[in-house]
């Protein structure tokens, strides 16, 4: 049904790679037992070995010293909840109740921080600059004696801005504050090595890397205090109760192995082509985010004088799937907190369109969407009372 759709919303979720499905298949029908200890039966032992291999692959991908530092979860949302609530529960009474985050974090971090705020934690939400950068010095200044954790994203979900995590990590480490980074959108696309960058917790997810949806992980540096907040069995080194989802874990690892620098460079080239064509050929447009320090798969542009839901619906009818920061597009009817966070007004959020690229996109797709959007924006501007007369044409 959607064969003809040009899908450019890969940051929301990606198409599964067939090779990932093949890797997963045996764990649905052949080795379908849950993981058992080495004293269990053969099928359970084999399942555990598959889980261990998947864990080792993902841990290595992040540069972890030990495979045991990687905990499987049900996705990025759970990982970020686990990181923030786990540290807060472990250190809140012992060390302090202050947490630092930024204004443009994705909802799992932002709303978990807010939930902790309602439970008596003090939350500092740092502002970002016009490109979406958190100033590492601002993190430094925000730290006080009761600060237990900072949670700053690696790269932004909407505008793709890549933070100077190295600098932020060094500041936090220097002051004895734990650092969690949400790497949901950067994992596999932007290099991260926890061996050289002193972060303590890292959120990753399968759905952004052509892996299965509903599986994620949390890198937890050995020795990091983390209270268990979901009770049950003793799986995942007693950090996460419940039987492991072996097929998904195997699929997640297979997907991670298929992510290459070559592919990221290729997508970066497509992104540059998309941005330069759109900004040069369509008048009254603004780039959201930094031109180069951004995810290779992300482009985000505001088309002034028009509203995003109208753009996305018109594009959908022409066979292109993109998303917008407009209030009208969201279930909550709230404009993008990221565009507002970088100092944009509501009009800039309403007219913003995110293009996020993936493995199956081509130059033809990019040219197609730019041609289509030029037409759509032209039509919508022709009926907009905000359009300056010289642009109506």
């Amino acid at each position, binding site marked *: 049904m959607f064969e003809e759709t040009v899908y450019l919303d890969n940051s929301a979720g990606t198409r599964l790679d067939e090779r990932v499905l093949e890797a997963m298949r045996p764990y649905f029908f052949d080795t379908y037992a849950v993981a058992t200890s080495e004293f269990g039966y053969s099928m359970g032992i084999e399942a555990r070995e598959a889980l261990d291999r998947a864990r080792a692959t993902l841990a290595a991908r992040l540069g972890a010293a030990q495979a045991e530092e990687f905990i499987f979860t049900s996705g990025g949302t759970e990982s970020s909840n686990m990181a923030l609530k786990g540290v807060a529960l472990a250190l809140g009474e012992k060390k302090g109740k202050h947490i630092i985050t930024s204004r443009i974090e994705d909802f799992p971090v932002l709303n978990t921080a807010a939930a902790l705020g309602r439970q008596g934690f003090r939350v500092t939400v740092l502002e970002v600059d016009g490109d979406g950068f958190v100033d590492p010095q601002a993190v430094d200044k925000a730290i006080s004696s009761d600060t237990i954790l900072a949670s700053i994203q690696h790269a932004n979900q909407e505008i793709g801005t890549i933070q100077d995590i190295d600098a932020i990590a060094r500041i936090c480490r220097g002051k004895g504050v734990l650092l969690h980074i949400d790497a949901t959108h950067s994992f596999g696309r932007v290099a991260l090595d926890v061996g050289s960058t002193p972060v303590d917790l890292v959120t990753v997810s399968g759905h952004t890397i052509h892996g299965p949806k509903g599986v994620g992980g949390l890198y937890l540096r050995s020795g990091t205090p983390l209270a268990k907040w979901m009770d049950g069995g003793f799986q995942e080194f007693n950090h996460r109760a419940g039987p492991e989802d072996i097929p998904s874990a195997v699929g997640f690892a297979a997907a991670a192995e298929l992510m290459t620098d070559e592919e990221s460079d290729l997508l970066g080239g497509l992104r540059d082509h998309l941005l330069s064509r759109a900004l040069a050929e369509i008048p009254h447009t603004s780039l959201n985010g930094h031109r180069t320090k951004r995810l290779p798969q992300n482009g985000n542009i505001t088309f002034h004088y028009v*509203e995003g839901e109208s753009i996305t619906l018109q594009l959908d*009818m022409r066979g292109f799937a993109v998303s917008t920061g407009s209030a*009208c597009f969201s279930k909550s009817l709230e*404009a993008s907190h990221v565009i507002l966070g970088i100092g944009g007004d509501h*009009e800039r959020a*309403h007219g913003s369109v995110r293009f996020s690229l993936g493995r199956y996109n081509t130059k033809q797709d990019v040219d197609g969407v730019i041609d289509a959007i030029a037409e759509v924006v032209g039509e919508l501007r022709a*009926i907009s*009372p905000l359009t300056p007369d010289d642009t109506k044409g």
Partner: protein
Amino acid sequence: MAFPYSEKVLEHFRHPRNVGKIEDADGKSTEGSPACGDMVAVYIKVDDEKKVIDDIKFESYGCASNIATGSIITEMAKGKTLGEAKKITWKEASEELGGLPPVKAHCSVLAVEGLRSAIRDYEERHGLIEERVPTTVEIITKRLRHVMNPLRGLDIVRTNLIKDIKFEDGVVTIVADLPPDHQFASVIKTDIAEKIEPLWDVHQVEVEFTG
């Protein structure tokens, strides 16, 4: 395809009728603001004898519901008397379109309000408001409910932006709780003036910002 909109909404969205400006309009209005994400401008030409809407055009900055409602309302109002056109409701416009998602009511109601405001604008300009009710703070407040607070996407009265309203000797003085150098101060001031100035016994509108 599982669009949340009826075929007719999509049809009007893709091919809106009666779009554009009427340069020498007899009545015009704008409802909403860029900040709240939806804005509609309505222009009418009126047959002064028969009080019939001869021509009507609209412009829209907004989502699909907003555009489609603007389009349908112009079709419904064209050829109707001012009295008939004034009575068109959001519900009728929505039914004519085959239904709109309830969550989109606030985007589409703007077009209906836009039509009514354009008619009122015509009536005020032509001295057709029969009972010349003296302006009161209540009347001013009612009109201010049509001015959006861009910070919140809701009107300036509901969001407690208005601290005081005075009306003396034809001069309206409105005190808004916003710094004078705020990015939205001038937009709000223009919007307020547009809504209050047409009142027959108002000669001047002053907006003071104290934030």
